[in-house]
């Protein structure tokens, strides 16, 4: 990969890390709130479905994961298995896309549909 791409990947990982830090906190607080106030699954879905704000938030979350995880994985595999280059770039690219796909599938399940 070109020097420029390497540097941009590094930048993307830094920024996605910042986004993730924020998202994880919001996600945890929300989860703890939902559990402690004893909301049922149906009640939770009732609040999430159709909520544009939550949809946008979790889409951002998924995007940050899909950017952050494969870049990190690429570095880890490069260092631990001494495997670098095109093949690894493709593999981690696919992992990133899969994460985005599965993540968005979950987001649509929880926030899409309903009223």
């Amino acid at each position, binding site marked *: 990969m070109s020097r*420029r791409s390497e*540097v941009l990947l590094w*930048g993307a990982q830094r920024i996605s890390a910042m986004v993730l830090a924020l998202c994880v906190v919001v996600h945890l607080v929300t989860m703890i709130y939902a559990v402690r106030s004893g909301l049922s699954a149906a009640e939770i879905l009732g609040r999430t479905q159709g909520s544009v704000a939550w949809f946008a938030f979790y889409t951002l979350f998924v995007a940050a994961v899909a950017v952050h995880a494969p870049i990190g994985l690429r570095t880890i595999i*490069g*260092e631990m298995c001494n495997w670098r280059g095109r093949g690894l770039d493709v593999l981690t690219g696919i992992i990133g896309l899969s994460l985005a796909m599965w993540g968005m599938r979950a987001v649509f399940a929880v926030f899409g549909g309903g009223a």
Partner: protein
Amino acid sequence: MENLKVRIWRGAEEGGFQEFEVPRQESQTVLDVVTYVQRKCDPTLAYRFACRVGVCGSCAMTVNGQSRWTCRTHVSKVAADNRLEIAPLRNLPVVKDLVTDMREFFDKWARARGRFTGSKTRKDEFERVSPESKERKRVDAGIECIGCGVCYSACDVVTWNKDYLGPAALNRAWTLVNDVRDTARAERLAAVAGDAGCHACHTHLNCTERCPKGLSPTAGIAGLKRAVLAATLSGEI
């Protein structure tokens, strides 16, 4: 005082530890111990030193598992139970016994553009650099490197990525990036970018922890990462 039990690496990449007994002395350094072994026990022991006072950077070894300058490491500080294990530096090919081949270490300084490039001649006026300026302070923080290789030996990223320039070369590049007289800033930033350069650093801080001169290559590398990203985004490199 009880004798020291000293295990010293013998051989090259292949080899083993050999045991020696060395009389314990007041204010004894690890280099004193190695010198004693070479003079009194086995004259074929190979090791390097020059200044013996922490200036030249040639005496670094692995002492009880940690990279150190041996001429200024007191035995009392590292041999709690009167035992010393002395090996060559990590991450460098071993030539013989405690002597490593430092070529790749210094070649990487060259690759990181560790050489000053100026535009003035002896006929020009001196450049005035205020000691208070931000750049000059950054240079000051990294300039006292003695090229001992301790940080390079302590860095796991060097172990994992043979092409990684390493903390000392990058620290050197950082001092030049902040040298306002230097004219090769863009080439240097390009040379230290990417996954064999500053962006490979995991900020482990091993180098900073171990540097005998109290420098922080980690801080310089963090500065380089930001400077390279900015230069990439602005199209400077």
